[in-house]
């Protein structure tokens, strides 16, 4: 029996949303054979049904109970996205325990901080790499009872008493389950709106990470809003396909894959790794594609660069299609979205190259593609719009379950994050800071009363730390409140706006605008090694390493040309100087957060000599 999108929405409208664990239980009873997940093993996508999903999660719950995990205790998961992540997560939430996600890239020192701060009793670790990190710091983590690992590879010689494989753990859970199969379902009924379901550690561009407590009530409320999402009118088929590649420990990935995915009774396909996202996309052709600007920029620049290598006819046709696409998108944005001419132009482009381009990018069947977590460059957004991907920008943050404002495919204002979403109250404080009030606003920071009080006021308003302005009904984010640059001339500049204009270039990966209390603006540039290397090869410029390449005079000239292009488009101050960052930025060395955001303060300190050079 096929279920349609309308049925799904009817259920949600009538009965309200559920927390993920309740919904998995529900789906597993109503549609046990529906495919919940796919995971690639030796080139074949192995499938898991909702029935198995629920059963395995139950085994996890019972296993946790066996090892003394009770309601309110924390359980940590450090792994790439994979089915076991979901089993552990749902299993933990089902019995009222709190699930804490750790990034696989978190180094040992951060692992130690996160595990001890969250007081996790059990750690689910993916493989040898993650187990090694945990073992390195295990002596200072007395509350940690067990480390359960998913991958046995390389683990044969480990014999730490706290180690255990996931299959052993499931076996324990299974025998427990068989002696008391109703336990989990009884526990689920007792879950209160105020109970914490998950804890998401904000990556913290300043200071140590803070644990945001998101309750079952928050998750239920967001799920209830699902029928009012801008996606709702567009989804045509009852079996949505998701590609899970955004880290599940981040609120965006969790919201999309776990909450929306399960509520749409979708199939979650796990990407093999971040490097294979492009091929995975092409195979899965997801109907719903959440993305972060970094990924979209990479897809955009990848397409542009590959197009340069294409044969003459293909190149001409693509250029022509892009030209039509640009006109069409401008008409759509400036007139209305049903503009007839725009539709005709787009369909010509579709026949000439966009259809196959979308297929190559894996977005041919995308009915909903949202960009969030960081501002996206308008050019990139327009590129996807013109090839026919219904991409739009939305805004949210961990503290409000990533649900605050959103454009919609039919109502986009480029450069803004859209209008407040259904059920969200939004106002601007006197200093322009965006305040949010909704059912999705979190309970507070774990063990940090002070920070909680600074973030949520007594009326329930969440202080987002982002400065915004209204453009009509649309909200535009100016920048993080603390990042805004005031030059010595007294001008207010939003660095991220300029940075994004510069990062449109396929050759530039990172741009950090500097100029606080300085005479003029300057920028630190990190190149996109692959595309610049490709460019250099075509120009016959020999090079070896990243550093060698980025110090070539030709490359510097290229970068300056790209910066000048951005300068022409900017309405605020021009960037006058630049320096090349001599290395690729890295999470492990503390230059990037786990979500690949630049830690501005760290960089400004680390490359202070380069910066001073520019201003001397």
């Amino acid at each position, binding site marked *: 029996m096929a279920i349609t999108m309308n049925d799904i929405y009817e259920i949600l409208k009538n009965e309200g949303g559920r927390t993920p664990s309740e919904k998995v239980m529900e789906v597993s009873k109503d549609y046990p054979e529906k495919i919940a997940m*796919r995971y690639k093993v030796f080139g074949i996508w*192995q499938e898991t049904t909702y029935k198995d999903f629920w059963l395995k999660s139950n085994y996890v719950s019972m296993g946790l109970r066996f090892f003394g995990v009770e309601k309110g205790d924390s359980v940590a998961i450090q792994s790439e996205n994979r089915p076991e992540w979901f089993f552990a997560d749902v299993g933990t939430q089902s019995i009222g325990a709190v699930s804490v996600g750790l990034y696989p890239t978190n180094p040992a020192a951060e692992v130690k901080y996160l595990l001890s701060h969250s007081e996790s009793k059990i750690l689910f670790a993916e493989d040898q790499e993650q187990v090694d990190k945990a073992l390195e710091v295990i002596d200072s983590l007395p509350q940690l009872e067990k480390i359960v690992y998913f991958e046995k590879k390389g683990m044969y010689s480990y014999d730490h008493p706290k180690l255990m494989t996931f299959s052993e753990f499931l076996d324990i859970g299974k025998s427990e389950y068989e002696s008391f199969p109703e336990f989990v379902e009884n526990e689920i009924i007792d879950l209160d709106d105020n109970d914490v379901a998950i804890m998401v550690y904000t990556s913290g561009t300043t200071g140590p990470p803070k644990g945001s407590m998101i309750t079952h009530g928050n998750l239920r409320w967001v799920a209830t809003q699902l029928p009012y999402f801008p996606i709702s009118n567009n989804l045509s088929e009852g079996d949505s396909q998701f590609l899970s590649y955004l880290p599940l420990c981040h609120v965006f990935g969790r919201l999309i894959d776990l909450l929306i995915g399960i509520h749409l009774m979708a199939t979650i396909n796990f990407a093999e790794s971040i490097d294979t996202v492009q091929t995975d996309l*092409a195979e*899965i052709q997801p109907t719903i594609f959440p993305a972060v600007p970094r990924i979209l920029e990479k897809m955009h620049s990848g397409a542009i660069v*590959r197009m340069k290598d*294409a044969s003459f006819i*293909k190149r001409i046709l693509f250029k022509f299609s892009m030209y039509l696409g640009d006109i069409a998108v401008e008409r759509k944005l400036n007139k209305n979205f049903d503009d007839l001419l725009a539709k005709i132009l787009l369909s010509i482009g579709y026949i000439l*190259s966009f259809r196959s381009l979308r297929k190559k990018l894996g977005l041919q069947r995308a009915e909903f593609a949202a960009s969030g977590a960081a501002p996206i460059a308008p050019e990139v957004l327009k590129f996807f719009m013109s090839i026919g991907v219904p991409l739009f920008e939305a805004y949210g943050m961990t503290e409000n379950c990533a649900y605050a404002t959103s454009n919609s495919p039919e109502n986009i204002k480029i450069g803004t994050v859209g209008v407040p979403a259904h059920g969200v109250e939004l106002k601007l404080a006197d200093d322009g800071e965006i305040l949010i009030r909704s059912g999705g606003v979190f309970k507070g920071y774990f063990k940090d009363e002070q920070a909680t009080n600074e973030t949520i006021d007594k009326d329930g308003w969440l202080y987002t730390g982002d400065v915004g302005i209204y453009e009509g009904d649309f909200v535009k984010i100016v920048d993080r409140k603390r990042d805004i640059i005031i030059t010595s001339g007294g001008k207010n500049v939003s660095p991220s706006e300029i940075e994004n204009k510069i990062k449109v270039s396929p050759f530039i990966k990172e741009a950090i605008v500097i100029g606080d209390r300085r005479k003029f603006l300057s920028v630190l540039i990190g190149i996109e090694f692959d595309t610049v290397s490709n460019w250099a090869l075509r120009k016959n410029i020999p090079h070896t390493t990243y550093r060698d390449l980025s110090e070539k005079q030709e490359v510097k000239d290229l970068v300056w040309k790209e910066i000048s292009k951005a300068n022409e488009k900017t309405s605020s101050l021009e960037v006058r100087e630049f320096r090349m960052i001599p290395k690729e930025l890295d999470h492990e060395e503390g230059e990037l957060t786990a979500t690949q955001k630049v830690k501005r303060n760290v960089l400004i300190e680390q490359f202070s000599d380069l910066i001073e050079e520019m201003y001397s």
Partner: protein
Amino acid sequence: MKSRPNLYTNYDKESAIFSNNTQKFWFAVLFVLSVSLCFVATDYWILLISRSLTFSIGAWGINIVSGLAGQITLAHGSFIGIGVYTAAVLGGVASNSVWGYELDMLIWLPAAGIVAALFSLILAPLAVRLKGLNLALVTLAFLFICSHIFSNFISVTGGAGIGRKVAKLVLFGINLEEGLAFGNFLLEKNQIQYLFCLFLCMIMGFGFKNIVRSRAGRAYAGIRDGDIAAEALGVNLFRYKASAFALASFYAGVGGAMASTISGGVEPGLFNLLFSILAVAIIVIGGAGTVLGPLFGAFFYIMAPGFIQYILKITHLTESALPLNLGQIEAILFGLCIILFLIFEPRGLWGIWFRLRNYFKAWPFSY
């Protein structure tokens, strides 16, 4: 999953003959066109295409042993000969000098393949111990022995320079040589023969594709790419080299037997060294080791001279005072084609097809 052609949820789907509906659709179109061809084309073209189809079967045979398993053989022509004579003896008409049992096609067609395969097993113990040119020499010796026997075993082959009639087309007791009448509609012998060749070619083609995607096919490719490495990985060299020869000979026997029914008579001198080299040439032109290559190669070999003749005929070139006759011009042009292929497209006709397909597959990119 519909419209997600590259999403494989099990191995069966990944190794399917037609991995998506587009391929199925085009195959169906091709099939319908091929069948309807026999009602519109003239006998000249029908005969040529029928010959091409049977030659492809033989070419698939040598493609198994040379293209897939990488073993050079010059005895392929002999196995074709063995198949032809097995069929002739079992299905042909006896005369004063030659044997003939006038059996049904149901018996002589498979028997032609099986007997050829059995003979190839004589070669197998040697083939396993030798490789490269040494193996080629042994097969060459086998070819000369066969050639001698064909010339002198008069009661089977009719003897050198004389030859004999081949197997009759009798299926389920119905003599197809006189055509088949459906009410008022008469299917002529040529048409029946064409449809039968088409049918057989399809079966053998799918058979070849199945060999490629099976355990045996992977073992053959392993032996081709490095027999010591393959052995180390657990491939039984004796078994797979022998089975490659046996399968190749089966194809040769069946293809040869079917081809002989088109020409009607056969002379033992046909199965000489040149004939075996021709088999190698066909897969080189078509694309060795590929599924479609031998089909392309066989069609090219049979049809190109046909086209050349046709062009010469309609331009009346032969009537003018050319220093060469028709056959010579044909041979020169054909030879030229082969040379050009080897220079410009070493992957054969299949390589052209492959590039053409990838040009559109990679759209709008170039890779």
